């Protein structure tokens, strides 16, 4: 590690002009990065971590501007140089890779050409040897068959492959600094590991400096030399990554550290120590009785739509695809016991969501049985299930709290919906009182009940979704990645809430997730799925501590292991 700072940011302040006046997204941020150093900037949404990097690159959008401070790169003040000079630096000296790699690539340009664009722009290649060099770079980012892939379009490549292309783009001109903005968010955990390993390897090899921007403290601590924690636009702590988990000094860092799921802790450990309350004892439920849910040989096949849907064509350009049937769920069987929490884990496309939708009776299975409380509810068509008496007994908490709330309904109206539709007059007071009671139960302040979704924070929306799901005291609740869209600290709270509710109300959970750590914290048993099939199931400890299947082991290994 060199002593001279490659990037030196002092008192950086970034402001955005909004209709409510000027908002400071970044306030007096100072940080330095030495040559060859890898620094992680960690923070939750709105902490200003991405804005900081955009300010360095000077690619803030129209409304934003650097209000104060200096950004010095290798001695050059990036704030004052001309746009032309800055453009010359971008991509050549400082590169950036982004979240959502597929969207970060021009969808209608061959990936090879996109690399060439950068090479030619920065005079690293002439039009004659650009192709050759581009292929060489593709090879460096470990893309098999680079000659062939050169001609590929982004949509023809997997997410991980796309991220490699983005990395290739960023590293094409051998820059000195790489800014990686949430480079693996949205990628499966195994892909995440591969991508991160590649980034680290390539940057080390070239003695590059790297800024890793992430919400995942574990990831940062695993891959970085130094971690900087930001909260609401300010740097609250900066420490060696080896020490950040062990001795976090700032209150906020401590909260983040605690909220990060990791092996060997309980749900309560996720909460900040000052507010952690003792766990609620579970309601006495006869465990091990008849399973509340029994799924047998469940199959879901999708037949590709026939191309002659001429009208779909007229309305929107839907693609015609091959007509072979595709098995999203391929004959799976499992049980959920009464009062039990079962985790359904797998990477994207493994069929876990399809399974949950079928169990939820929003989707009709192609074959197989769904036995709920002794009845095969799979025989009731999804279309008519809403009107059946079973409906109120199985409920769901959705993945995206924003998407799952009608933007035109207030929180109270959303929570009241099931009561109004399916509630019996239980004599427990008016609908409003019931709603208020539910709000109290999920910890939603009563004064928020009359707000619309866009006036609520992510965590509050999640609570509304949970309150709605439990309004009629269902026996089985399916949790479809209920915390995937939330910040870790909020996730910690929501997970605890779910745990407490289960204990209080005696429900069973089917918890669908991609995150093994989270599953282990909440679930009694775990089912691991891959390509529509179950590869392993067992108790949480069994599966996580002593996985039998290679795939499970691979999944566990891929989880970042911060130096604890």
């Amino acid at each position, binding site marked *: 590690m060199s002593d001279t700072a490659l990037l030196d940011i002092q008192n950086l302040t970034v402001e955005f002009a909004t209709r409510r006046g000027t908002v400071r997204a970044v306030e007096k941020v100072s940080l330095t990065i030495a040559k060859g150093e890898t620094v992680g900037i960690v923070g939750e949404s709105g902490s200003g971590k991405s804005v900081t990097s955009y300010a360095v*690159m000077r*690619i803030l*959008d*129209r409304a934003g501007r650097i209000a104060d401070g200096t950004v010095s790169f290798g001695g050059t003040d990036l704030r004052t140089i001309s746009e032309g000079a800055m*453009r*010359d*630096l*971008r*991509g*050549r000296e400082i*590169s*950036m890779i*982004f979240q*959502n790699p597929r*969207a*970060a*690539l*021009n*969808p*209608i*340009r061959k990936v090879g050409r996109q690399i060439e*664009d*950068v090479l030619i*722009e*920065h005079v690293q290649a002439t039009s004659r040897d650009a192709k050759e060099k581009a292929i060489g770079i593709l090879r460096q980012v470990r893309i098999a068959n680079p000659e062939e892939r050169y001609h590929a*379009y982004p*949509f*023809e490549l997997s997410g991980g492959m796309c991220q490699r292309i*983005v990395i290739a*783009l*960023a590293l094409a001109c051998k820059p000195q600094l790489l800014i990686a903005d949430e480079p693996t968010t949205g990628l499966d955990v195994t892909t995440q590991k591969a991508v991160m390993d590649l980034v680290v390897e390539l940057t080390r090899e070239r003695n590059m400096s790297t800024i890793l921007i992430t919400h995942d403290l574990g990831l940062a601590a695993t891959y970085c030399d130094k971690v900087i924690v930001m909260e609401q636009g300010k740097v609250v702590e900066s420490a060696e990554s080896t020490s950040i988990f062990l001795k976090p000094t700032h209150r906020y860092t401590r909260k983040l550290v605690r909220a990060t799921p990791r092996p060997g802790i309980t749900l309560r450990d996720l909460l900040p120590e000052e507010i952690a309350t003792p766990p609620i004892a579970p309601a006495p439920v006869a465990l091990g009785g008849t399973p509340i849910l029994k799924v047998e040989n469940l199959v879901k096949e999708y037949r590709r739509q026939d*191309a*002659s849907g*001429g009208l779909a*064509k007229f309305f929107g*350009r839907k*693609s*015609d*695809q091959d007509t072979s049937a595709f098995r999203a769920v391929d004959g799976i069987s499992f049980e959920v016991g009464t009062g039990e929490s079962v985790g359904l884990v797998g990477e994207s496309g493994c069929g876990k969501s399809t399974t949950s939708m079928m169990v939820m009776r929003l989707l009709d299975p192609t074959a197989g049985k769904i036995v709920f409380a002794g009845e095969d509810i799979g025989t009731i068509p999804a279309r008519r299930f809403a009107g059946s008496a079973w409906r109120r007994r199985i409920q769901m908490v959705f993945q995206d709290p924003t998407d799952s709330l009608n933007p035109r309904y207030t929180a109270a109206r959303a929570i009241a919906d099931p009561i109004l539709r399916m509630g019996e007059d239980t004599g427990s007071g008016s609908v409003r009182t019931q709603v208020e009671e539910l709000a109290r139960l999920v910890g939603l302040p009563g004064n928020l009940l009359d707000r619309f979704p866009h006036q609520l924070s992510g965590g509050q929306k999640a609570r509304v979704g949970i309150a709605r799901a439990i309004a009629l005291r269902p026996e089985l609740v399916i949790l479809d990645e209920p915390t995937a869209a939330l910040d870790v600290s909020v996730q910690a709270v929501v997970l605890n809430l779910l745990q407490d509710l289960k204990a209080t109300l005696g429900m069973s959970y089917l918890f669908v997730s991609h995150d093994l750590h989270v599953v282990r914290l909440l679930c009694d048993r775990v089912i691991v799925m891959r390509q529509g099939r179950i590869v392993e199931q067992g108790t949480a400890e069994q599966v996580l501590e002593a996985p039998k299947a290679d795939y499970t082991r691979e999944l566990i290994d891929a989880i970042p292991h911060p130096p604890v």
Partner: protein
Amino acid sequence: MLSQIARRLLTALPTLIGVIIVTFLLTRVLPGDTAAYFAGPAATPQAIEEVKKKLGLDRSLPVQFVSYVEALAKGDLGASLSTGQTVVKDIRTRLPASAELTLAGLVLGIVVAVPLGILAAVRQGSWIDHLCRVVATAGVSLPVFFSGLLLVYLFYYRLGWAPPPMGRLDVFSTAPNSITGFYLIDSLIARDFETFRAAFAQLILPAVTLGMFALAPIARMTRASMLAALSSEFVRTAKASGLSTRAVIVTYAFRNAMLPVVTTLGMVFSFLLGANVLVEKVFAWPGIGSYAVDALIKSDFAPVQGFVLTMAILYVMLNLLIDILYGVIDPRVRIEA
């Protein structure tokens, strides 16, 4: 590719059948009496009845429809009462006039609207953005017949800059030998530059009138899709890679923004082709739009049916063309197709 085209054409068949049926019914409900027209000004009711029989108008609608379709299958669209010619002949001579005018208007619209839209998007919220909005909207706010007349009044009658509004060529020029039917192209093929100049001069005012109308939808769509493209993540990547502004705007943003613009162009073209009716009337342009309107006003079935059918076929072809164009621009569509 060919089978793809064939399949697309096949799916358009129900549309065409629908158009034929609707047009047939619509024209039969028109209040005019063809038989009375044929029978002449002093005809007795018996004479009209006779003519009716002769024209087959006394038969039931389904029977009439069958014979209409039979004739259609033979490529016979009937004859026009008001021009006295067969509809096929009329349309053949008039369609190129309309197509030339419409294309000229569309090209003019594109040439102005696309850069304007891009500029408005790149400088979003600036005065140029507002100007783009106002100009484009103003263009579409005037009835075409009114703006056409104003242009004639100003540039022909007042200033004398434009040639007289008397159709595709001034009286003393001769039409070039018809190869494409487009005077501009035909005169160039014949190397007859004087005719080219004359045809071009005649084309300017009507094309501007139409172009003004095409401006708004194209500019609006260009602006919107450019805004979307400019705020997309791949443009951010391109910017972060240090690509020049030109490359970012043209190669990255605009090429992607073109997709919705192309769709809009198709709609605008078919809209203009039908809507230039009024422009043709103002400029005495011998196109199919004014032909159809006159026929409709005169309850002249055959040209109306022929016109609508032609337009429907054009519409189908146009959509096909757009699909192909889409494939050229967007590899995603191409591969899946």
